[in-house]
């Protein structure tokens, strides 16, 4: 459209980011208010259109995004409650850009791929509300609204699991809701404490603006650490990290396929994204202080998730546990606190969304046909459904992290970052990669190989509509595996700025980078004028 105005794109008057939130909400309203009862086709059409338009806008944002700008772009600001310093601040930077795009891609696919079988109207309405909420979390720059969106996504997901889920769905929905709400309860205290204590320390007006609070850093060291813990509790539940992960297997397993795709694809990222924005950016000192703890939890998640996944009898539960392992990688990379680790973490967030989303879709397709997810009841599916087996293989290999597919660059960068920060973490985490190969290959073997008996022998292969949902994901898997540069170069300025922010605000902290630099690395850091010279790095504990 107005691609010539690349630089001016940031100040076009059309509220692009707001529309990313509002269009799904409008779609939900249209779906909910459509007259004439439960009409599956029309509601699905409206829902698809709303999510496709949202995706279109997201791609436009991606197209217009200024690669060289490390700050927030497309910013919008409007007062909401002046007395409390709460405003509708939106912005997007290299960290949130790809999460927004991921959200915009996964929702239409999830809507198209799976039919709810009953109560179509509320189903599509809730999915669209969910999309709006997730977009809001990634776009907002105001702590109050972050909390609002972070909480509001619980409601649609609660209904998706509770009403359209399988088996023990009410228990799973309840557990999911209570767990997350209890976690974010602490975050609300943290947000309020941040705002009020900052206001009283600086004497300025009360503000919930993320940038002002993060650049100001007015809190005392000990206070900031306490508040960081409050935030970390909420994010750890959402990620989920090891001791508070037990809601995830239940929720993922009992959720309907679309719910699982969205839950794994984007909702878990709310936690890891939260760690980046509200951990590292808002509380740099506390992040440095707690980094060893967080990395340990990440590594525990990797190993524990992998071992637990190996033991599962239910294919969907296996994928759910594999999520815990993958999210462990993301946390590990994030708290490595160097460019490689954080970039790897973000890349991994996107990759996990694509490949685990695709895995859940495939498991859903198997369940639709066979009405079981028990690995023991499946077998030899590749004879009846060779194409599905092929697609499953690619997706699975991407999840394992095979070079050439999208899982590899993320995992590699994460491990590199972790190695530079503390090599022992990286060494233990690397064994998680091997375990991933173990549980996924073993599951694949049991499900697709072997003799096909009974219904397994007559299972239908991928239908055209299913191809249509899988092909975009396969394309992304291959593209990002072979050529991740367009993604990396867009996130790099923001990540560099974040690392510099931490170095800037935390006395005595320097980015943990490798002692021996490759030529590529030196070139990359040559652009930055300040920290390329301070050669002595050490562990930051």
């Amino acid at each position, binding site marked *: 459209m107005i691609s010539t105005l690349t630089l001016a794109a940031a100040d076009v008057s059309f509220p692009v980011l707001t529309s990313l939130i509002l269009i799904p909400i409008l779609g939900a309203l249209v779906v909910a208010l459509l007259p004439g009862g439960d009409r599956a086709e029309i509601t699905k059409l409206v829902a698809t259109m709303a999510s496709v338009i949202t995706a279109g806008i997201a791609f436009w944002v991606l197209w217009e995004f200024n690669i060289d700008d490390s700050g927030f772009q497309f910013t919008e600001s409007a007062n909401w409650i002046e007395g409390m310093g709460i405003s509708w601040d939106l912005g997007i930077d290299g960290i949130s850009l790809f999460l927004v795009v991921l959200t915009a891609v996964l929702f239409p696919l999830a809507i198209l791929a799976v039919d709810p079988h009953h109560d179509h109207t509320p189903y599509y309405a809730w999915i669209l509300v969910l999309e709006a909420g997730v977009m809001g979390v990634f776009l907002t720059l105001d702590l109050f609204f972050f909390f*609002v969106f972070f*909480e509001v996504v619980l*409601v649609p997901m609660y209904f998706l699991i509770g009403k359209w889920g399988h088996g023990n769905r*009410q228990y799973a929905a309840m557990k999911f809701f*209570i767990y997350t709400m209890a976690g974010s309860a602490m975050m609300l*205290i943290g947000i*309020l404490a941040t705002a009020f204590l900052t206001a009283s320390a600086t004497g300025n007006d009360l503000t919930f603006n993320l940038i002002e609070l993060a650049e100001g850093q007015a809190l005392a060291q000990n206070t900031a650490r306490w508040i960081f813990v409050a935030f970390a509790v909420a994010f750890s539940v959402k990620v989920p990290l090891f001791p508070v992960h037990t809601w995830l297997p239940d929720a993922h397993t009992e959720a309907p396929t679309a719910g699982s795709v969205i839950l794994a694809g984007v909702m878990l990222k709310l936690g890891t994204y939260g760690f980046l924005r509200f951990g590292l950016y808002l509380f740099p000192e506390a992040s440095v202080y707690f980094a060893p703890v967080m990395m340990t939890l990440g590594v525990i998640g990797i190993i524990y998730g992998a071992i637990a996944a190996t033991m599962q009898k239910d294919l969907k539960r296996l994928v759910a546990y594999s999520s815990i392992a993958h999210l462990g990688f993301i946390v590990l990379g994030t708290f490595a606190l160097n460019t490689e680790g954080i970039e790897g973490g973000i890349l991994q967030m996107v990759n996990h969304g694509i490949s685990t989303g695709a895995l859940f879709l495939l498991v859903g397709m198997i369940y639709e046909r066979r009405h079981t997810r028990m690995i023991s009841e499946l077998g030899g599916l590749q004879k009846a459904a060779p194409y599905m087996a092929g697609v499953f293989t690619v997706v699975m290999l991407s999840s394992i992290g095979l070079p050439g597919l999208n899982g590899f660059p993320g995992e590699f960068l994460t491990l590199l970052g972790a190695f530079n920060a503390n090599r022992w973490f990286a060494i233990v985490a690397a064994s998680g990669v091997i375990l991933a190969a173990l549980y996924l290959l073993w599951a694949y073997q049991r499900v697709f190989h072997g003799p096909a008996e009974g219904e397994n022998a007559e299972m239908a292969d991928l239908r055209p509509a299913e191809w249509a949902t899988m092909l975009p994901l396969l394309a992304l898997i291959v593209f990002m595996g072979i050529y991740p540069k367009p993604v990396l170069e867009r996130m790099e300025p923001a990540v560099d700025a974040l690392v510099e922010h931490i170095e800037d605000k935390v006395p005595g902290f320097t980015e943990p980078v490798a002692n021996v630099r490759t030529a590529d690395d030196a070139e990359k850091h040559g652009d930055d004028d300040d920290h390329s010279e301070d050669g002595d790095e050490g562990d930051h504990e």
Partner: protein
Amino acid sequence: MSLVSLLAQVDVIEFDTPSVDWVILTPLLILSVGSLLMLMFASLLRNLGSTIFSLVTALIGFATAGMAVWLWWVRFEGGDAATSTLAGAISFDGFGLFLTVVIALAVALSALLADDYLSREDLDQGPELYVLLMLSGAGGIIMAMSNDLIVLFLGLEILSIAVYILAAMHVRRIQSLEAGMKYFVLGAFSSAFFLYGIALIYGATGSTNLIDIKNFLAGSVLTDDALLLAGFAMLLVGLAFKVAAVPFHFWTPDVYEGAPTPVVAYMASGVKVAGFAAIIRVFVLTFDQYRLDWQPVIYVLAVLSLLVGSFLAIVQTNVKRMLAYSSVSHAGFILVGVQAATDRGTAAVLFYLAAYTFMVIGSFGVLTVAGGKGDSSHTLDDYKGLSDRSPFLAFALMIFLFAQAGVPLTTGFFAKFAVISAAIDARSFWLGVIAMVAAAVAAFLYLRVIVAMFFSSDHDDDLVPAEGVADDAEADAPGKIDVPPGATIAITLCLLATVVFGVWPGPIDDFARDAIPRLVAEATALGN
């Protein structure tokens, strides 16, 4: 005093009655005179139906609220015009007006709910319920505007005595009579405590007027404040009973369960609002200097209410009892705002009270309709599949319950946000943490009801509840519920208020923030 001076001045007759600013009193007068007129007309015109009374009551309620808003508009838009009248016994400030609006709306909405209830339960012989409702509301407004402990007590009694009768209104239900009796006996006790507290305060300070008390305490150091502190305790007992704060909450579940549901809607909103109005006026405002003495007590009451309310709520199986315990937990939340004892805290309490009024009247409004004839189908099982029987009721109750749980984009969220902000601002971090834990616990309870309403109509192979089968056998449509017009209006209004001000809380928040209670002596000094 004036009598003595009158006798002394024989030739010049100068009798100074307290000046009365009638304009200030208009909201109160509309409500109380309206109720008396209704009583009169009802006895003159015998064949008036309940619907007329209900509509007139709602109109009077809305008129009262509208009058208060108008007064705010003409007196306060230009600046703070707080004053007092009737010899300093009634204060005129934003705080009083704000709560007048809230209480009047509670009266109007409850009256709309009552219409169909009365005809359904065959109780629609006369206007008693509406008259008592309005009188009780008038008492609440007096409490919100009072500037004198005696006036406060008058308001409290006008409010309470009407509610004692209202609780026992369903004469054919033994539980309703029990509720009325229980509420009356315990309420009378608490009123006695309150009155004794006034006496002790009078003994300690020499006045019942809040302005005089405050001035006295500001100007003198008490060598022995035992009398004063005992007075605090007594007053607090009386008021904590009205707002159902733990440990003075024991009546709540029984009375809420037994009393007619529209009356419960009013008890949970109007009565609680008036009680908190008094707590703010007396403690936060008048005994400001002694906050170090009473704040810890409020702190403890808040913690107990939050925890006891939330934890006992989740083990209930009767939805009315659940909401009774949840109202205890809400009282705890509001006390969190009181405990801050700051302007921010007061504004938060006001916002909470306004938001809570709509949430709770809406909730009990749905219960009124869903309870069915006899007002007794309130177990969790009775709410199973409500979404099929009445999508509107189920959707409305879902929104109200999410609001009570504090889910964002409802007023309930911003209310909780405001009180916890006030607590954090006052550095009561742990109180905030406890409140949020209680909120998470309480969420479980609300979800249980939502689960029952939405998730129990099973679509796949799960077992269908036996009673559902029986219903289907009887009629093809499983017992659709017709929502009567009065209830529809009331529930829709509550729904709109909860959602619209949840998304856009600015207007109410501004109103609450400007509505700071004031103790201002009368502008025109009394004759000396």
